[in-house]
């Protein structure tokens, strides 16, 4: 569940978007430059809003009036940039393990515990690697992977950091048609399997149409239309 109202003064206009939903998908649509990526940056905490609030699954992540502003690392939000931002000097396994190691660093008090936890986490990591069909790529470096494979690694990495929600910025932009359709199916199955909400940014109505949930169109930083579409994977209907 996500509930927010975020305001940020940008160069060309003021971004001012509010939305509340229980829907598994929130699709942000609009032309480039309309503020969609900025909105993702605000939600993830990489950029600080001027005003407003943000609540995710009941947790208050940001509230200007009371001075609450959790840093990105505490928000439990998986943000997959358009560039994917895989760490080039780490293998696929190391990339995916990064979130695991840092998520639990605060809770561990000894090296021994970390080693034991490491082994347990490697178990659950393998589930993710297997589901996303990248297990066989574990010891490869990002430069050796195809675009589709890299995207799956980025998703695995975000999931293994125990994110409550995934933000995806133009995930289909650099994929050809066949890969794009695969990616769309992948996202639908990831959402259904892991039951995490996904906020997805796209400039293509055709891609947006493939997803159920809330479709919010943004122009010059303001919402201009909202369509709530019922899911075809589950039966939740929003009026």
């Amino acid at each position: 569940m996500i509930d927010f109202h975020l305001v940020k003064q940008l160069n060309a206009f003021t971004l001012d978007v509010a939305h509340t939903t229980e829907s598994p998908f929130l699709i942000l649509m609009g032309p480039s430059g309309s503020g969609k990526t900025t909105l993702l940056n605000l939600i993830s905490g990489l950029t600080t809003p001027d005003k407003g609030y943000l609540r995710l699954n009941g947790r208050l992540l940001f509230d200007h009036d009371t001075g609450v502003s959790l840093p990105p690392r505490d928000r439990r939000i998986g943000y997959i940039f358009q560039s994917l931002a895989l760490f080039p000097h780490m293998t696929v396994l190391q990339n995916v393990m990064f979130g695991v190691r840092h998520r639990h660093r605060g809770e561990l008090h000894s090296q021994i515990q970390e080693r034991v936890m490491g082994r347990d986490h490697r178990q659950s990591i393998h589930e993710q690697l297997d589901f996303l069909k990248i297990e066989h790529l574990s010891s490869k470096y990002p430069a050796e992977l195809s675009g589709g494979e890299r995207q799956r690694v980025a998703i695995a990495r975000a999931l293994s950091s125990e994110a409550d929600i995934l933000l995806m910025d133009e995930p289909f932009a650099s994929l050809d048609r066949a890969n794009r359709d695969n990616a769309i199916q992948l996202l639908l199955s990831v959402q259904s399997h892991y039951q995490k909400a996904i906020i997805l940014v796209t400039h293509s109505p055709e891609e947006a149409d493939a997803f159920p949930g809330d479709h919010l169109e943004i122009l010059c930083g303001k919402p201009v239309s909202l369509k709530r579409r019922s899911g075809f994977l589950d039966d939740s209907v929003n009026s």
Partner: protein
Amino acid sequence: MSHPLILSAVLLSLRIAALSTLFTGVLGTLLARKLSQTKKTSFRVIETLVVLPMVLPPSIVGYLLLLALGKNSWLGGLIFAATGKTLLFSWPAAVIAAVIVSLPLMYQSARAGFQGVDQRLENAARTLGANEWHIFTEITLPLAKPKLLTGLALSFARAIGEFGATLMVAGNIPGKTQTIPTALYFAAEGGDHATADALMLISLFIGITAMFSVNFILDKSRTQ
């Protein structure tokens, strides 16, 4: 010049350059990291001061150090009061001189290295739960490694070749503060070509070894 004196000049040069590179490496890296994260004017001023010795003639740098470290100065006075000894004409003064002149090289290499790291990678690490220190050690430093290594190599080369400022603050005391460059200068001046040749060859050997090692490390990290 006798063999023990040549040996002591070489060992002293290596010791001074090694220590100076250690300090410069750490200081230059931290400065580059700190100064790159903010656009405050005070930081720009600090940056200018750090880099200044690179464009000043070494003798000017030496003179400024004399003023700063001599008995009559603030720092020099403190040290004299505490230890009864002056910092000048000791090998630590040579280390200070070497650090001052090689810091600009390390700083600029480190800054270029850090700026070359894609900020989106650091941002991704933030969303994955890493704190700033871990981002620095696991993402920024490894990716800036080639430029940092180059900076260290340049610093070492600059330190071991330091002549002007070192001569002014540390002097040229055989066995105590005489380094390869000063020993070679005075040997050549005095017509002692045997010593000058020996020191030149040793210098070349050190330089070539250093460059080869750096290239080797860089190539190894590039094939990863």
